[in-house]
């Protein structure tokens, strides 16, 4: 009797996950650059930091030109933003949450992004890029890490899903009193 309210397919997840990630990544990137400017007076630091994932410690100095750092850093940042966007939308689809309430999606986004920060900064950096550890002082961790991820990237991911509703083919609230409950009819007449 029930009808499906969500459609789960890989293309929807990949396309909308990427888009959600890119939109959220753009705003996160902007916030991070502004934050870096305020905290350290150097707007290029986030780009160099991201570029160092590929180039290594050289990206943190003059050995990598500003233009190359910005291009490479932005490419890595947006690639990761899109990748995590796909993971986020994929997790929502797996748990039937694409049609969830908007505020819940924002909360999901914040929690997910906090987890991404933990994986990125607390696990991947010390394990794979130990030369970056010294560059992550406490203010940078608190702002560029926890706050910008959990309060910018994640909620925007959730907001994207809440607005676009990828894979949703029905309304959350399309319910009412079951027909026949108050009418005294049998409700299910013989076919």
């Amino acid at each position, binding site marked *: *009797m029930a*009808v499906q309210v969500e459609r789960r397919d890989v293309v929807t997840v990949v396309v909308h996950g990427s888009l959600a990630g890119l939109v959220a990544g753009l705003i996160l990137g902007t916030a991070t650059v502004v934050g870096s400017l305020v905290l350290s007076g150097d707007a290029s630091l986030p780009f160099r930091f991201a570029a160092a994932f590929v180039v290594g410690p050289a990206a943190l100095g003059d050995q990598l030109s500003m233009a190359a750092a910005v291009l490479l850093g932005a490419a890595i940042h947006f690639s990761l933003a899109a990748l995590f966007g796909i993971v986020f939308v994929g997790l929502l689809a797996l748990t039937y949450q694409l049609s969830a309430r908007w505020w819940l999606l924002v909360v999901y986004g914040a929690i997910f992004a906090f987890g991404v920060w933990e994986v990125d900064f*607390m696990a991947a950096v010390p394990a794979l890029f130990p030369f970056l*550890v010294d560059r992550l002082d406490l203010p940078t961790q608190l702002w560029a890490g926890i706050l910008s991820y959990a309060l910018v990237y994640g909620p925007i991911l959730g907001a994207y899903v809440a607005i676009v509703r990828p894979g949703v083919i029905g309304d*959350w609230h399309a319910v009412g009193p079951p*027909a026949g409950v108050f009418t005294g009819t*049998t409700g299910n007449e013989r076919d």
Partner: protein
Amino acid sequence: MELGFPLAVRLTHFFNILFLSLLIRSGIEILGAHPMLYWRDDCRPGSEWVRFTRKRMPSGGLWTAEDEKQPYSPLVALPGRDHLGLGRYWHFLALGGWIVTGLLYVVLLFTSAEWQRLVPTSWDIFPRAASAALDYLQFHLPPEGNPYNALQQLTYFAVVFVLSPLQIATGLAMSPAVAGRFPWFPALFGGRQAARSLHFIGLLAFVVFTVHHTALVVAHGLTAGLAAIVLGVTSDPTPTETALAVALTILGLAAIVAIHIWATHDSLADPRRMQDRLQRVVDPPQRLLLQPLVSRQAYSPRAITEIPRPNGRPPHDSTWQQLAENDFRGFVFEVSGLVEEPFGVSLDELRGLGAVTQVTKHNCIQGWSQVASWTGVPLGTLLDRARPLPGARYLLFRTFDDKWEHAGDHGYFYETVDLALARHPQSILAWGMNGAPLSAPFGAPLRLRLESQLGYKMVKWVRSAELIADYRTIGEGKGGWRADVLHYSQIAPI
């Protein structure tokens, strides 16, 4: 005194992993039976704050609570594929194991100096924990504690003495059996559905804790951590000790995985056999705990649910269809079997036997609840009139419900009720709901209301009653259609 990892701590840690993982998977199975969470007990359709299903109910036709079920994969649920009855058995079994493990751990703590490993003795635990968190943020390991640092100690304390009791308490508050005896208890959490929501959030908290706990063990040094929690070695382990700890860890985890695979496979392959096994362990303590306490419900008419859920679709049985078309005017309810005085009565005559009205909460095994007013004749009155013979032990209710909506031919819906339950003051044969005659979706012309039982015992579309000596000769021998087909229990006390 240096606090290490004594054998009892290590063993309870292992069994905690086992039982907690069983609880989580069987809990997911139970959630799938009604994959929506609410804050209010009326479970008004559409008022759920979260749901884990992609179904919606169409507004153009009758839908029932059965339609709302969302079967989950055996990869996440125990056993999966819509086996609520077995999921509940596994949950209660694992709960027993988890509580025993937890009690042993707490007794161990407080009968030795080990309590100091978890219980903070000074308020400076908070600034020290904050300092430890900042150390982690800056990729430094905080100073070692005895045996935990302040953040670990505070977290473990919260998990053992706050989160775990809260999970047990919200689990109890979800239990209609507790609500029937101590109505004030669920009210502490805002009602049964609020407790259900909090129970789910507690599950998430356990998952988040487990992930971070494991990650920090890795950060602190995986092999040293394993040597401590598996072998009790707190100083730098030797290569042999490390190898042994890793091997035992793999063995232990493999044993837990094997138990899950066995439980899932055997439950799905032969549900009846697994039902028999689990029933033998779970049912007796349930009876023992609940029997001494009387369950009695009484709600205000103001609490009546505005939009009640039906469950199960009205029969296709031709006799019932004809009776329904004539407003059940020709219907005769018969009582027979092991009685001195078999009789048959029309609906009007039944109403003349004496009516009682009770406002009660219907507690479905799926997880939802609703309040309604029911009017009918006490089963005790019918028994007095029929005068059971000495060998009669159960009332067998036969129905018009041909279960056409359920795949496979499992015969007409039936249920058995022992005579003690039948004589419960809130066990009635109802013909009225919320001040009006029963409507078809809710069981017209007659339905059982056994307010000390879960909803599935309350048969709808009742045709007749028969007194019998033993239910094992009826159907598949389990005492009811749902017990036969869906592996529910013959008893469902609340």
